[in-house]
């Protein structure tokens, strides 16, 4: 019996630290101070454990001619991160730092199971939220925002827009008030009895008919509107999904800041 307990203890002692100990922040561009980096590491570990998705932040000022997406994909192929197994569920925030604004890029990518909840559209939404923070040079807050939003969106049903109006409390409150007002209003209105006669009550079926009718087509108008693609805001974005060169599929979004 004692041995068994020992085996269990050993099992937990080894498995949990292995997942939590993995590095989450690879700050090649030195955007964070040491304290910031430590804080982010700790946050990333916490969030990863909670959401069962490995959260990773990459920064670099030299990607060797690759864009941020390619850089993130290569990282995923090589390092093979994942929450419970290698090349598993992962979300990566990649910041490509450069001296000129037009060369700076940010990429958000999801791999493995995380893809289901972090679709291209959602990654675009998150990217648009954190891009202004990045533009301000506030990289730590941007990373924290990224963790926060990823964790929030992972909870939301993939068929629902997480920023949609239906999930907003004020909207639910407004709908509830309107429903209450309409129901009670109609109750008050109908308190004294309703008129329950209509056309059908007194109509003489035999002697009522359409004698003559005409439905003539006159003209038609056609309006054409371009379907808005959500990738051209805040410094331009690029198709986020696709495949890594190692053959892993991903969803995501890339843009400038």
């Amino acid at each position, binding site marked *: 019996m004692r041995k068994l307990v020992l085996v269990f203890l050993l099992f937990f002692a080894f498995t949990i630290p292995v997942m939590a100990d993995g590095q989450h922040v690879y700050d090649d561009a030195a955007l964070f101070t040491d304290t910031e980096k430590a804080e982010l590491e700790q946050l990333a570990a916490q969030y990863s454990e909670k959401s069962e998705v490995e959260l990773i932040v990459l920064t670099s000022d030299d990607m060797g001619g690759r864009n941020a997406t390619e850089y993130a994909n290569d990282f995923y192929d090589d390092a093979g991160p994942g929450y419970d197994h290698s090349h598993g569920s992962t979300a990566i925030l990649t910041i490509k730092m450069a001296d000129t604004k037009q060369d700076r890029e940010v990429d958000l990518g999801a791999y493995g199971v995380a893809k289901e909840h972090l679709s291209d559209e959602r990654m675009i939404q998150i990217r648009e939220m954190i891009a202004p923070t990045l533009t301000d040079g506030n990289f730590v807050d941007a990373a924290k925002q990224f963790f926060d939003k990823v964790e*929030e969106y992972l*909870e*939301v*049903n993939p*068929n*629902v827009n*997480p920023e949609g109006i*239906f*999930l907003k*409390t004020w909207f*639910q*409150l407004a*709908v*509830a*008030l309107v*429903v*209450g*007002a309409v*129901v*009670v209003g109609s*109750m*008050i209105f109908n*308190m*004294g*009895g*309703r*008129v*329950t*006669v*209509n*056309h059908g*009550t*007194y*109509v*003489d079926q035999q*002697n*009522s*008919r*359409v*004698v*003559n*009718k*005409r*439905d*003539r*087509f*006159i*003209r*038609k*108008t*056609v*309006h*054409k*509107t*371009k*379907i808005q*693609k959500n990738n051209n805001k805040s410094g331009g974005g690029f198709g986020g999904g696709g495949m890594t060169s190692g053959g892993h599929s991903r969803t995501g979004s890339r843009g400038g800041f």
Partner: protein
Amino acid sequence: MLLHYKCPSCGSDMRFDSESGRLSCDSCGRHEHIDTYEDDYITQQFEEDEAKEYHCKNCGAVVLTDADTTSTSCSFCGAGVVLADRLTGKLAPTMVIPFTISKDEAMQAFKKWCKNGRLTPKGFMTANRVKGITGMYVPFWMYDLENDVEVEATATKVKTYRRGDYRYTETRYYDVYRDIDVNYLKVPVDASEKMNDELMDKLEPYHYNELKDFKTPYLAGYLAEKYNYTDKELFGRVKEKIKTFIDSYVASTISGYSSVQYKHKDIRTRQRKSYYVLLPVWMVYYDFDKQEHTFAMNGQTGKIVGKPPLSYGKAALWFSGIAGGTFVVLKSIAMFLGGGLL
């Protein structure tokens, strides 16, 4: 001229019984069918024309009536009296729907209705403050109407589809024309000055299969009024009333479009026939909070109308209950789909 209905067996006064649909005698329980009731038993008494006072033939008391009353009961002996001279010639009703709901049933139904008032103040529900309940034949005009309707409209059909990177909205315009004959039979409009039009409109519908040729014994024991307005005078009101019917019928003939805009709508209404009928109404007078409330009950179907007092407290309670419940449901769905608590 005053009419009394005497029982062929015992000589007491008979009155109309809503349950059996016959004349009944309270003393000996005899029932007489109205179609076979012999005129011999109707005692007549002539009075000066347009008098407002009659002598009850039964007890000799003075029966005071309103100038519009055609049927009443002697306030002393309770004998049903019909004022026949106000029901003859131009004032003769052609048809009547007899009462099918008795006074007791009306009272019971009213009490039940009071209890079901979800927004009425608590004290109102006890319904023990009924000041009076009166069975009354209210004069109505019924119209048979012929309508020739001509409508011209512009209607659209809207289709949206996607091709490539574009969304197309295609709107097709149509010129729509309808020539419609629509006839209505026996549309009722109340012809009594005293009755609230809105209240009377809400009492409908009456079932016309119980429409009977008018005979004075139906009125025995009830209050009845004669009309204050002729069919010509009320033609405008009936036209107004069927306008919504016609509008809904016209709309139903123009279907399959996304939108319809009327260019013009010509309605020519002709009156084919009009009938003067008496319809049964129970009037309930009720005191609450030093105010008198009037309710009317359809004497044939039991439908009750009339504005009861409103309890703001209860309304607020219902409002918060419904709004709160809706919010909880919405929030639960949202949380189930992954939304946060706040």
